[in-house]
């Protein structure tokens, strides 16, 4: 696979305000990449820089080998885009917006566009200002997918969609991925990322703090392990066990609470050696993993992948 999105030390500052700092990552052609982060972390700034709407303060961004700032028209031929805040001429109907953007873009598969309209049960005869938020989002999705783009850049794509249409969206992403398209998707919705993405980038305070496969992130997650012993227990038993990051003794002195990373084999063996009577583990949800990355930290190292 070759990289369809490639950034190198991509930085955007707004005067004294931080935008994004030293973002370096690649998205491979054909993969689905989730971009996660709290509000104001820099997700939309990254996307708008990729689209050539914002000029990088430093570093570079390229799509399909084309520089996003100096070759925006060529870049735009490759992509389908759904902005985070989709606004348009309020007096146009959904059909007119789709026809208009189709004319500007060219190469639209009209049958496919119609099938998308029907698939999302969009009424194309209504004016944009008459649409609910969800229906506006459907217009946005139709126009983003209708020309079979090689790369889809979707900013909060399921925002405002009901669960049924969210499921339809997931199926659509799977379909286009099956046909070889790449999906770059920013989201707060972790279930959505698990559904649709193979890799995830986590951005916090403008910096990329983690880029990894979704399953690797899960593997990297920590376990909370509680071991109960028949007699008094000692935290020292586990301090040197590989993978144990922390250990604490319960007030009654018979239970140890361990924080473990990786596999549990060594912990189980050590527990058996000391006649453990019970062992329970709790797997933190993916959400907790992300929250750990989201939580403000004094100095998060930039990640290069």
């Amino acid at each position: 696979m070759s990289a369809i999105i490639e950034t190198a030390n991509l930085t955007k500052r707004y005067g004294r305000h931080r935008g994004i700092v030293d973002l370096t990552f690649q998205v491979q052609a054909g993969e689905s990449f989730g971009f996660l982060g709290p509000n104001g972390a820099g997700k939309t700034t990254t996307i708008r820089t990729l689209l050539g709407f914002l000029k990088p303060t430093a570093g570079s961004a390229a799509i399909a080998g084309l520089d996003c700032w100096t070759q925006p028209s060529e870049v735009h031929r490759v992509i389908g885009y759904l902005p985070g805040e989709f606004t348009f001429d309020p007096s146009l109907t959904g059909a007119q917006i789709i026809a208009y953007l189709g004319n500007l873009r060219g190469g639209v598969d009209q049958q496919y566009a119609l099938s998308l309209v029907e698939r999302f049960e969009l009424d194309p005869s209504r004016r944009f200002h008459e649409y609910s938020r969800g229906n506006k989002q459907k217009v946005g999705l139709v126009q983003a997918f209708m020309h079979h783009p090689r790369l889809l850049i979707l900013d909060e794509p399921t925002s405002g969609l009901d669960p049924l249409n969210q499921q339809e969206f997931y199926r659509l992403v799977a379909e286009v991925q099956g046909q070889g398209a790449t999906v770059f998707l920013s989201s707060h919705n972790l279930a959505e990322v698990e559904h649709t993405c193979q890799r995830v980038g986590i951005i916090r305070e403008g910096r990329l703090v983690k880029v990894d496969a979704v399953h690797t992130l899960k593997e990297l997650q920590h376990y909370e392990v509680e071991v109960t012993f028949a007699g008094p227990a000692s935290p020292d038993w586990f301090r040197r066990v590989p993978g144990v990051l922390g250990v604490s003794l319960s007030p009654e002195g018979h239970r140890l609470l361990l924080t473990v990373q990786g596999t549990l084999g060594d912990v189980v063996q050590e527990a058996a050696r000391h006649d453990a009577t019970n062992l329970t583990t709790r797997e933190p949800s993916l959400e907790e993993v992300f929250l750990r990355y989201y939580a403000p930290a004094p100095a998060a190292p930039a990640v290069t992948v």
Partner: protein
Amino acid sequence: MFRTILTKSLRDYRWAILGWGLGLGLIVYAQYATFAATLGASPAQVQKLVQQFEFFGEAARVDTPGGFVTFKIMGVLPVILGIWTVLAGARLTRGEEESGALDIVLSTPRSRRAVIRQKLLALATAVALISLLIAVWILAGMARAGVTVNAGAALTAALSGGLAALFFGALALLLAQVMSRAAAAGTAGGLMALAFVLEGTGRALHNAAVLRHLSPLFLYDQNLPLVPGSAIHVAPLLLLAALTVLLAGAAVPLFVRRDIGRSALADLASRDRRPVPAGQIMARERRDLWVRGVGRQAMRRQSGIVFWWIVALALYAGYFVTVARSSEHQFQQLLGNSSFAKAVFSGTNIGTNAGFLSALIFNYLQLLVALFAGILAARWSADLDAGRLELVVSTPAPRSRVLLARYAAPAAAACLAAGAVWLAIVLTAGISGFPVNPGHVAAASAGLVPLALITASLVVALSGIIPRAAILGIMAGFLAASYLIAVLRTLLGLPGWVVDLSIFHQYGTPLLTGLNWISVAGLLVAAAILLGLGAWQFAARDLDRGTAGS
């Protein structure tokens, strides 16, 4: 400024208050200044002359500075300011409603009644502040002309003008409760133009005086506070104020009771519409010529406002050809080369048919067409401010092409306006038997286009850098300054290079002398440079998401 809806709305109006107040005030001041140079004219001749032009304003004691100013500008002042009040009135509730911002305001514990009342109060306050600025300029004008500085008269004149303009704003607000913002602005603007024509016609033609009673401007014209010795009639002003309150008051319950985000007219139109399959709708829209490009879409979007402007400009031109025909001989007998007449019509010799038409029609059309193109071009700025261009710019079309396509809309509208003016003059002249040279009329009409282009280019060059309201203020200031320089060039003794900067001076009098190709080329080059600057800054800078207006 963000404590109440009233103060927030006033903050939104700050640029308009400054732009319109200073711009209109300067124009009034210029009339006082113009008068000073005409003292040598015969009062009887002057009085007789302006009576032929009563369409524009009341001709009373025009041999005095106050009478002259009343005749020259105070008659049209409510209509000029009315352009802004109509737009503001239509936007008052419908603007935020159509952009989706009103929902959040109405979700606060403020009642709808309180919201519309505060917004109305803000509009009325803004008009009052504009009127106060105009009054200050009137006082300065009185001092300049050497007449008694009468603060009461200045305030009455400016405030009653503001009230008349506010009447049309209230009308637009009422209409906007049952139709879209654009439709309400267009309809109210059309009714305002009709009111002006009825009042002017009734005033100028005594056998049609009954028409005046159909126009609310008749109530405004009952007071001529700047005319020496003129009594103040409170009743017409109170009646005008009552009618304004009635219109605005009628809008309040409609706003309180109706569905937000819907318009009764649109609902009525779609009531019996049978559902059409999505495929048919999509296929129909694909065939629609008007969504095939950025420029065409912009033209379609502005077609309503363009239509009404062009109709109004053509009617204006046609009407005055008819007036010219009916009073042709009197003028030639009266005027000769009267210095006063030249001063009245900015140096144009109106003793000939062409001079007469040039003074009567093109002197004002040049300003109107430039304003028209500027207002159309400002839509680009509004779209940039609102972030509505993001998806368009995400298509493969280069930014510069998007901008140029959008620029084509005001450019095409200006060409259409010029064509319509030419046609209206030639047709009405032909029908009424008034001899005009179609070639010269074509030159004068075509000469309007560069003025429109340079104004539109100025707006485009500033778009995205500063908010739309500020751009409109700067545009109004630019046009007012240009117009004043052209009008006052001899009185103020301005250096030649300053006078040359005025686009209206560059326009000249093509109906008399033909097009000055050097001036035309200069204007086109300046327009191209400004447009190039706009294209460059649009292509080279970050595309904001609705942040320019905040």
